[in-house]
């Protein structure tokens, strides 16, 4: 009996390792996505996504429109209407997919939106304070006083080159595209997440604005904090240097490499992806 049990366990361990060849030790993985399938309005978007990210790493996810790049961020953050059909995603070993949206944020996940929503009537400062308080409470830290918070909020404004007066305005209300993106980065600076997903943060930005955003991101790089930089174009990666580049096509990663892969994609475009039939199509 003992022997049988042992062999079952050994087999299980082997299977885990086979499914997860890049990640030798689970303890050292911040984010682990395994065979993730997800759909929106019954349309399959993610079709077996695998990704492991260690603390301190910067991963770029590139790919054509409709590949599932934004969906990845929405599924991980728990947006309504994004259904997980199978697979798993863990952050620091905790099952992300079972958590409420706010608990994922409190566990250290941050999504910088491609289109941050405008919320008139809710002041940016109040919103940021409530968010930071929630984050601190989750970490077992005491809430900041209003004066303490105002001080760090002003500093964060400075870091992303936003006038302090923006704190008094409604959340993103009447902000330009670039200002909204900078406001996202400011939130990231204040919330100090473990994993940041930047969803096409470069879209709609000119070079100067992109540099401000990239500087904000780079200032937050640390051995403990990881990033997923989702982008359609290579140019953002000139400013935020990735450790790994993945190509997402039709809901799964079809190619991974180092920063040079981004250059390759820039030269070749994504058309080569469509030239080869996908696995699904082969199965059909």
């Amino acid at each position, binding site marked *: 009996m003992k022997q049988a049990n042992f062999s079952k366990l050994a087999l299980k361990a082997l299977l885990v390792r086979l499914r997860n060849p890049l990640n030798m030790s689970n303890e050292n993985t911040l984010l682990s996505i395994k065979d993730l399938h997800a759909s929106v309005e019954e349309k399959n978007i993610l079709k077996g996504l695998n990704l492991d990210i260690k603390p301190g790493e910067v991963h770029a996810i590139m790919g054509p429109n409709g590949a599932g790049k934004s969906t990845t961020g929405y599924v991980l953050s728990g947006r309504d209407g994004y259904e997980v059909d199978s697979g798993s995603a863990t952050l620091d070993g905790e099952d992300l997919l079972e958590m409420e949206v706010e608990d994922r944020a409190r566990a250290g996940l941050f999504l910088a939106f491609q289109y941050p929503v405008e919320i008139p009537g809710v002041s940016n400062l109040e919103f940021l304070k409530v968010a930071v308080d*929630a*984050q601190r409470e989750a970490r077992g830290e005491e809430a900041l006083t209003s004066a303490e918070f105002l001080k760090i909020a002003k500093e964060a404004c400075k870091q992303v080159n936003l006038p302090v007066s923006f704190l008094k305005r409604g959340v993103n209300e009447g902000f330009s595209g670039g200002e909204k993106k900078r406001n996202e980065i400011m939130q990231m600076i204040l919330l100090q997440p473990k994993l940041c997903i930047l969803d096409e943060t470069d879209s709609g930005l000119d070079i100067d604005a992109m540099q401000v955003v990239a500087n904000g991101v780079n200032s937050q790089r640390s051995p403990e904090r990881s990033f997923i930089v989702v982008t359609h174009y290579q140019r953002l990666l000139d400013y935020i240097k990735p450790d790994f580049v993945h190509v997402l096509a039709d809901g799964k990663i079809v190619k991974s490499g180092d920063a040079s892969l981004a250059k390759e994609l820039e030269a070749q475009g994504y058309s080569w992806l469509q030239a080869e039939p996908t696995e699904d199509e082969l199965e059909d």
Partner: protein
Amino acid sequence: MSEWLQQAIARADSIQDGFEDQRATSLALLKDIKWPTRKTEAWKYTPLRAVERSAAIFKEESPELEPVAVEGLEFLELTFVDGQLVSLPEDLPEGLTIEMQESSLFAEIKPERHVFGLVNDVLAADVAVVTVAEGVAIEQLLRINNLLSNGAQGHIRVIVDIKAGASLKVVENAEGQGASLTTAYTEYQIGAEATLEHYRFALQAADNVAIGGCHFKLLESASLNSSIIGFGSDLQRIDTDIIHAGEKADAKLNAIYLLDGKELFDLHANVEHAVPNCTTEENIRGIAGDSSRAVFNGRIHIHRDAQKTLAELNNRNLLMSDKAEINTKPELEIYADDVRCAHGATIAEIDKKALYYLQTRGVSRSQAQLMLSFGFINELIDQMPTAELAEWVRPIIRDRFSQMEVK
């Protein structure tokens, strides 16, 4: 006819103050009027039981009452207690006068809708007339206080005449201690190129009956910016009438209501575009909790000659309980062909995208809902031109709002 109205008429009949003639027309109309019922369109959702049952009396002697203080503001105070004028502002700025007048009629308003306008005609004891001389800008805010002691009945009327090129800021402040009944009407004439910044706060105890309205007549290039903020009560009814009587006049009306318990709040907003080239923008937002009821009727009437009118009416409501009720009805009557007119009325849910956005920042779902609901009305508070008033009223609204949420 209701017993309450019979008593009101009897009282008016018995007043011998030398102004009987001025009261006669309204009194005659009132004696003939049909007491509104559920079949009366203007009172369809607002039953008058609370009036019929009211035991509020005309007090011979009233206690001394003080209006609420507002940090950072010193008002010119025009104060009524239980319907009697008790104080006029001392040291009026140059160009501003306040006099007492014997009687005035709500001549331009349909009597059927304004049965209480007629009641006010015959029972308002002291009618104050405020005049701003031509071209004078009065910086200090004038506050009209309608204070009612417990169980008192009072009827007030103020007429404000802002001459050409002049400007005035007025706060109408109603504070009823409880079980009181009031009718309160103000009439404004805003002269050519004159401006009025106007507020009406009805933030009183829940067992009051308060009926009244504001009548704004705008002459050429006049400008009105009005904010109305009300809690409900046993019966809270406000009729606003905006009459564009001169070309290029501009009117903006923001209104907020926040209802709890079994409260009732009814806002009837009527706009008459009688001449061309005028603009109106109305933003009405309300939140109804518990088993309260909100009634909104927004009518915009664009007369045949009123070409190039721009008019927008938007009413948005949030329901915070299954038992709360909102009756909203925008009415557009357009007889001119070259106008831009938009209206919308919604009973909204909280914006899901905004909710998700806040949650992704770690804000709990319940707190995010609270922030967004409050933000929905706070957006209009942000637009109040006098910041001190916004800062004063914001925490009052927030307090009530958090009490509503607890239930």
